[in-house]
C-alpha cells in the first residue's frame, strides 16, 4: 500500500479570515474555574485536592488513572471550592469537576520535578506525561499514551497544522505568532522519540503561518520539512494527512505507529515546548471565538476552566442572538445548549453561529443512491450502503462495509441531496455493532464449551453402558 493518493473530501468555503484579522491576545481571567476531570480521552483523572485546599498556578490537582489518562493542573492560584458534578461541554449529564476560586495572587507552583537538559529519551517521554498534555487538535488523546505506544526509535514525526474545519483558526494563529514554540517543541519531541525526521504540515491557504514557520525553522539546528497540503477538508484528519504526506495508509483498525509515524497537532507540540522549556503545564490554550453572532471574532489565549461567556464578552459579546453555539467547527463540532460551560483542553473553537452561517438540512428524503457521499468519503466507504444496512439493522453488513472505518467527518451529510443525517445514524449504529461483534466473538467459545459438555456427557454415558454390559456379561458367565 505505497504511494496512495488521497481521494475524497470537500472544498469548503472558509471563514478563517474573520478571526485571523485581529492579533492573538490574552482572554480575561475569570474568578471561578471549572475543570472537568474527564477532559481527555480515556479514564477520568483522580483528584489530588479537596474542597478548601489552597492551590498554586500549575499545581497538579488530579492525577491520571491507568495508561490512557492525563494530569490536570490548576490554571491559577486560589482555593478549591468544590469537587462536584457540573454542566460540562463533554457530557450531556455533566462531569465531575474541580471548582477553583481565583485568589488573584497568581502564585506559581514551584515544586515540579526538573528534567535535566541531557535527559535520555525515555525520561523525556515520562516527563511530558506530567505536563497534562493531550492532543489539542480536538481528539484530546493523552500525549503520554501516544508516546508510550510510539516506536522506540526512528519514527517519523508529523506535526499537524493542517487546520481544515472552515471556521477554526487557532492553529493558524499559533503558527503566525508562536512558530518558535512549535519548532522548539518539534525538536524536543524528536529527541524524546529518537525520530528519524520531522514534517510540519499546514494547509496551502495558511500563507502567513508557513512563512512564520520557515523563519523560525531557520534558527533550528535540524530544521523540519515544512509542507503545504491542499486545503481539501478533512486534510487535517490524522489518517488523511499521513496519506497526503507519505502516500501510505494507516491500516484499518490500526494506528499511525503501525507504519512508523507519530502524528501530533501543532498546539500539542507548542504545549510540550512550554512544559519542557518553561515549566508551564497545560493550563492555557488558544481558542478561536468566531461566528456571525460574535461582534469581533478573534483568537484568545485562554486559561482552562474559563466560561465560554467570558470569551464571548472579550470579543464584544453577541451581535445578534446566536442560532447555535458550537464547540469545535461546523463540520464536526458539538452544539452547546448554553454559554456558561467551561473551556476544556479540547476547546479549539467556539462558533456562535448566526442563522445565516448555517444551512440546516431540509426535510429528509429517501436515499436515491446518487453516490455523492461515496465520492467525497475520505475513508472510501459507501455511506449510501451503510445507511441502508443501518436502517435495516444488518449488522454483519455494517461491519463488512467498514462502519468502524468512518471518521465522522460529515462530508457525506454535506453533499447528500436527500439531506439524510448520515453521520448521526452511523454514530448511533456504532455501539450497536460493537455489542454485536463482541457477541459474535463470544459465540465460538460458547459453542466450544457446549460441545465439550456434550462430549463429556456422551463419554459418561458410554462408560456407564460399558460397565453395565460388563456386569451383565459377568452375571451371564456365572450362571
Amino acid at each position, binding site marked *: *500500500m505505497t504511494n496512495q493518493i488521497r481521494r475524497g473530501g470537500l472544498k469548503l468555503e472558509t471563514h478563517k479570515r474573520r478571526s485571523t484579522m485581529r492579533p492573538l491576545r490574552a482572554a480575561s481571567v475569570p474568578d471561578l474555574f471549572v475543570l472537568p476531570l474527564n477532559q481527555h480521552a480515556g479514564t477520568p483523572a483522580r483528584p489530588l485536592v479537596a474542597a478548601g485546599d489552597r492551590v498554586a498556578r500549575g499545581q497538579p490537582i488530579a492525577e491520571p488513572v491507568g495508561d490512557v489518562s492525563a494530569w490536570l493542573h490548576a490554571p491559577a492560584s486560589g482555593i478549591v471550592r468544590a469537587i462536584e458534578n457540573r454542566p460540562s461541554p463533554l457530557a450531556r449529564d455533566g462531569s465531575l469537576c474541580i471548582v477553583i476560586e481565583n485568589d488573584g495572587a497568581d502564585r506559581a507552583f514551584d515544586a515540579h520535578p526538573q528534567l535535566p537538559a541531557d535527559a535520555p529519551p525515555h525520561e523525556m517521554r515520562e516527563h511530558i506525561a506530567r505536563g497534562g498534555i493531550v492532543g489539542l487538535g480536538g481528539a484530546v488523546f493523552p500525549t503520554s499514551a501516544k508516546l508510550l505506544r510510539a516506536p522506540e526509535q526512528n519514527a517519523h514525526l508529523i506535526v499537524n497544522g493542517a487546520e481544515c474545519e472552515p471556521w477554526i483558526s487557532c492553529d493558524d494563529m499559533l503558527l503566525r505568532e508562536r512558530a518558535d514554540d512549535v519548532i522548539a517543541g518539534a525538536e524536543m519531541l524528536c529527541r524524546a522519540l529518537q525520530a528519524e525526521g520531522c514534517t510540519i504540515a499546514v494547509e496551502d491557504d495558511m500563507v502567513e503561518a508557513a512563512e512564520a514557520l520557515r523563519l523560525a525553522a531557520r534558527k533550528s539546528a535540524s530544521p523540519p520539512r515544512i509542507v503545504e497540503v491542499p486545503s481539501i477538508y478533512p486534510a487535517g484528519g490524522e*489518517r488523511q494527512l499521513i*496519506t497526503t504526506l507519505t502516500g501510505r*495508509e*494507516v*491500516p*484499518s483498525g490500526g494506528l499511525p505507529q503501525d507504519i512508523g509515524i507519530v502524528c501530533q497537532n501543532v498546539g500539542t507540540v507548542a504545549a510540550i515546548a512550554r512544559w519542557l522549556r518553561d515549566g508551564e503545564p497545560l493550563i492555557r490554550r488558544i481558542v478561536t471565538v468566531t461566528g456571525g453572532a460574535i461582534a469581533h471574532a478573534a483568537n484568545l489565549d485562554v486559561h482552562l476552566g474559563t466560561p465560554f461567556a467570558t470569551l464571548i464578552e472579550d470579543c464584544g459579546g453577541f451581535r445578534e442572538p*446566536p442560532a*447555535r*453555539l*458550537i464547540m*469545535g467547527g*461546523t*463540520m*464536526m*463540532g*458539538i*452544539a*452547546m*445548549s*448554553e454559554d456558561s460551560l467551561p473551556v476544556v483542553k479540547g476547546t479549539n473553537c467556539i462558533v456562535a453561529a448566526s442563522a445565516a*452561517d*448555517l*444551512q*440546516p*438540512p*431540509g*426535510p429528509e*428524503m*429517501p*436515499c*436515491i*443512491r*446518487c*453516490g*455523492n457521499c*461515496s*465520492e467525497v468519503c*475520505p*475513508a*472510501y466507504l*459507501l455511506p*449510501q*450502503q451503510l445507511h441502508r444496512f443501518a436502517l435495516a439493522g444488518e449488522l454483519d453488513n455494517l461491519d*463488512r462495509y*467498514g462502519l468502524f*472505518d468512518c471518521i*465522522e467527518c*460529515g462530508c457525506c*451529510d*454535506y*453533499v*447528500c*441531496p*436527500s*439531506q439524510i*443525517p448520515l*453521520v*448521526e445514524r452511523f*454514530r448511533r449504529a456504532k455501539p450497536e455493532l460493537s455489542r454485536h461483534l463482541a457477541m459474535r466473538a463470544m459465540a465460538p467459545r460458547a459453542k466450544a464449551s457446549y460441545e465439550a459438555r456434550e462430549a463429556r456427557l456422551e463419554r459418561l454415558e458410554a462408560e456407564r453402558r460399558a460397565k453395565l454390559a460388563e456386569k451383565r456379561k459377568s452375571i451371564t458367565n456365572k450362571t
Partner: protein
Amino acid sequence: MPLPTPQPPHTVAPNSVSRVMRIVLIALIPAILLHTVFFGVGILVQLTLAIATALASEYVALRLRQQPVRQFLTDGSALITAVLLAMCLPPLAPWWLVVSGTAFGILIAKHLYGGLGSNPFNPAMVGYAVLLVSFPVQLTRWLSPDIGGLAPVDMSFGDSLYAIFVGTLPPHLTWDAVTSPTPLDAVRTSLKAGLTLQEAQATPIFGMLGGRGWEWVNLAVLLGGIWILSLRIIRWHIPVAVLAGLAVPAAIMHAVDPGSYAGAVFHLTSGASMLGAFFIATDPISAATSDRGRLVYGFGIGSIAYTIRTWGGYPDGIAFAVLLMNLAVPLIDRYTVPRIYGRAA
C-alpha cells in the same frame, strides 16, 4: 433559553432531490425541441398526457400510502419518469397508451415497491416495456423524420390531436403516408431480407451518422447529458460504459462483416442510445452504486442493447437491457465494493 443541540455537521450544501431532478428535466429540453422539429408536435401532447398521468398517479399512491404528499409530489421524480417515457413513444401513439404506461410505471414499478428510492426497476422503462410487449403495433408507428414541417404531407396540430385522441388518422391521411420505420428497424428488416447494410442505408430515412432526425435528437440528448455531467448531477461511469457497451461490439462486428452489421457511430446515434446512456441508465436508484459497479452495469446495458438490436426480436433494446441490468444490481453491488482506506485490496 437553552440553544438547540443537533448533531454535526451543522451545515450542508444547498442541494436537494428536487434540484437534481429539475436540472435533469432542463437538460432534456433541447432534445424535445429538436424532436418537434423533425417529428412534429405530437411529442408535446404525449409529454402533457404523461406528466398529468404521472402527477395524478403519484398523488393517489402517496395518499394511499399515507406519505407526505406535498414533499414527494414536488420532488420531480415522477416528472422524470413521465418525460422519459413520453420521449420513447411514437408521437402519434393513442392517448391511452401513454396514460396506461405512465400509470403502470408510477403505481406498480415505483410505489408498489416502496416509492422513491426503493424501486429496483426504472419506472419509465417498466412502463415502456409493458407497452412494447402489449401493443407492439402502436409502438412501431414512428413518423417520418420530415413530418415536422419539411414533409411532403401536411400534418397540422389538429391532425396530431385527432390521431392521438381518436386513435385513427384524419381522413386525408394514411399511416403509410406519415410513418416510416425507424433506422434501427429498417436496418434489421432489410438485413433479414437479404440486403446488405449499404443497400439498407440507401433509403432517405438515413442521415449522416444514423437516421435522419434521430441523429440530431441523439446529439441534443448528448449535449444535455454533457451538461448534467459537468454539473456533477451524474458521473461519467454509466454513460461511458453504456456507449462503450454499444460501440465496442458494433465496431468489432462491423469490422468483421461490414455488409451485415452497422457500425458504432450508427448505433450510438440511433434509437434511444444517448437517452439511455445519459438519462435512463443513470437513474441512480435502480443503478449499481459504486464506480466500478456502474462501469459493469453500464457496459452490461450497452452490450445487451446491442445484442437485442442485432439478433433479438426488437429493433431497439435499451429498455430491456436496462431492466435486465436492474435485476443484476444487487449482485453487481455485492462484488464491486471499493477498497476501504487502510485495508488491503
